[in-house]
C-alpha cells in the first residue's frame, strides 16, 4: 500500500516535446488539480534553465517546484564557478543523477521530466522519470498522454521537421487528447528553444 504523497495524481499532466531541424518544441497543459478540482488554470509547467534549456515537469506541485528551483540554482552556480554553462547532455545527466540519488533517500522527488535544449551538438530531447531513468528521444511525451499519442508521433515525426510541421504535430496530439482523454484541460503553453535561446510561442 504505497503511501499517498499528495492528492495530485502524477499522470494527468500532459507534456509533449518534439525535436525539429534546429529547435526543440515543447508544449504542456496549464492546469493544477487538487483531488477532483482545478485549483489553477494558468500554470506554466515548462521551466527555463540557464537560458538555453527547457525543463517540463510532471507531478505534484510541491516536489516539482522544489526540484526545479534546486536544479535551476545549481546550474547557475556551475555557470558562476566555471564561466560557462553545462551542455544539454551534461545538464540532463546531472538532473538524472539528482533524481536517482533521491529515489533511495528519505524523500524521493516524484517528478517526471522532459528536458530539451540546443547547443553546439544540435537539438536534443531527454525523457526522464522520477526513478532516474533517462533516454534521449526525438519525440517525448509524459503522463497518460503517452498511451494516446505515441502512435501519432511515430506516424508523423520525421527528421529535420520545420517549425510549422512541429507545431502541427503537437497540435494534432493535443486534439487527440481533447477528444479521448477523460480529464479536460483548457490551455496549453508552447515554448521553443533554438540557437537564439528560449521563447514562448504566443499564438502557435
Amino acid at each position: 500500500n504505497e503511501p499517498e504523497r499528495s492528492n495530485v495524481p502524477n499522470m494527468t499532466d500532459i507534456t509533449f516535446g518534439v525535436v525539429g531541424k534546429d529547435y526543440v518544441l515543447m508544449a504542456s497543459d496549464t492546469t493544477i488539480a487538487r483531488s477532483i478540482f482545478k485549483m489553477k488554470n494558468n500554470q506554466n509547467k515548462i521551466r527555463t534553465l540557464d537560458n538555453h534549456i527547457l525543463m517540463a515537469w510532471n507531478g505534484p506541485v510541491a516536489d516539482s517546484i522544489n526540484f526545479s528551483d534546486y536544479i535551476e540554482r545549481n546550474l547557475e552556480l556551475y555557470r558562476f564557478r566555471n564561466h560557462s554553462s553545462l551542455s544539454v547532455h551534461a545538464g540532463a545527466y546531472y538532473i538524472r543523477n539528482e533524481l536517482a540519488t533521491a529515489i533511495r533517500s528519505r524523500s524521493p522527488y516524484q517528478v517526471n521530466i522532459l528536458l530539451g535544449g540546443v547547443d553546439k551538438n544540435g537539438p536534443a530531447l531527454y525523457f526522464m522519470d522520477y526513478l532516474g531513468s533517462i533516454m534521449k528521444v526525438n519525440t517525448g511525451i509524459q503522463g497518460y498522454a503517452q498511451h494516446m499519442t505515441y502512435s501519432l508521433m511515430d506516424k508523423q515525426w520525421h527528421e529535420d521537421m520545420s517549425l510549422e510541421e512541429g507545431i502541427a504535430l503537437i497540435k494534432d496530439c493535443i486534439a487527440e487528447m481533447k477528444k479521448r482523454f477523460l480529464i479536460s484541460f483548457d490551455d496549453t503553453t508552447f515554448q521553443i528553444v533554438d540557437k537564439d535561446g528560449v521563447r514562448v510561442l504566443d499564438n502557435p
Partner: protein
Amino acid sequence: GCFKAVLNMVSIDTKFLFQDSCGLEGSIDHELRLDEFTGVIVPIPSSANRQKKTKDLLNQGVSFAPETFQDPREPKIKFAHGTTTLGFTLDKYVVVACDSRASMGSVIASNTVKKIVHINDFIVGTIAGGAADCQYWERVLTTECRLHELRNDEKITVAAASKLLANIMYSYRGYGLSLGVIMAGYDITGPSIFYVDSDGTRLKHHLFSVGSGSPHAYGILDSEYRSDLKEEDAVELARKAIYHATHRDAASGGTIRVVVIDEHGARSVWEGDMNELHEKYQKAKAKYRSDQMST
C-alpha cells in the same frame, strides 16, 4: 533529571495516553523511557521476545508518517477538518472570508473559531485542515515575518511569507501535518493571494477556496467573480459564497467573517451569523418572486 522525576510520577497516565493516542493497545506490555536526545517518550520492549516485540512495534508504527501514524479509517486523533475559506484579489485590494465551525467527526466542537489569522498589518492567513497545525505554524510564520522586517528594514512580501511557510511544510513532509492556508495580503507588488498546503504546494492565483465547503463556494465565486468589482459588491460576493457553502456543507457554519486588505492594511469589514443571512436571503428571494408574479 527533573523532567525524569515528573515523568516517573505521571508514568502510568502517560502510558495510557501514549497507548491510546498511538494505537498501541494491550498487546505489548512495555515500559516507557525518555529519550534524552530528542525529548520524545519511547517504549522499551522487554528482553524476552525482544525480536518479535520490536518487529511488532515497528509494524505498529512508532512514527508519525501518515501511513503509520494512525488508521485513516478509525483515527484515534481526530482532526478538525470541516471548513470553508475563500480569498480573491481585485484590482486594488484582496477579500478574504471564512466560516467559524470546527467539527470533529459528527460533533460540532465549536461554532466560534477565528479562522482568519493576522500575520501582520498587511497579511492574513486562513485556517483549514488541522486547526492546531494551522494555528501553530501561522504563529511561527508571524515571528519569521517580524524577524524579516527587523533584519531587512522592509515589509515582507506575501510571496516571501508564503514561500517561508511552504518551505517549512516541505521539510515536515511525512509527519502528518494537515494544513490548507490561503495567504492574502497587500505589498509593494500590489494585492496577491497564495495557497499553501501541508504537502509543500504553493500556488498563486486570483481566486482560491479551501475546505470541505469549497466546492459550493467555487460555484458562487466562478459565476460572479470579476476583477473590477467594487468593494461592497466583492464583500457581498464573498459573504454569499460562504453562506451557500455553509448551507450545503454540514461541516461549515457559525459566523461568517469577511476581511478586506488594501494599501492601508487589513480590516475586518463584516461579521455575522449565517442563520441571520439565511433569513435575509430567503426574504429577498420571496420578495423577488412575489414582485415577478405581480408584474
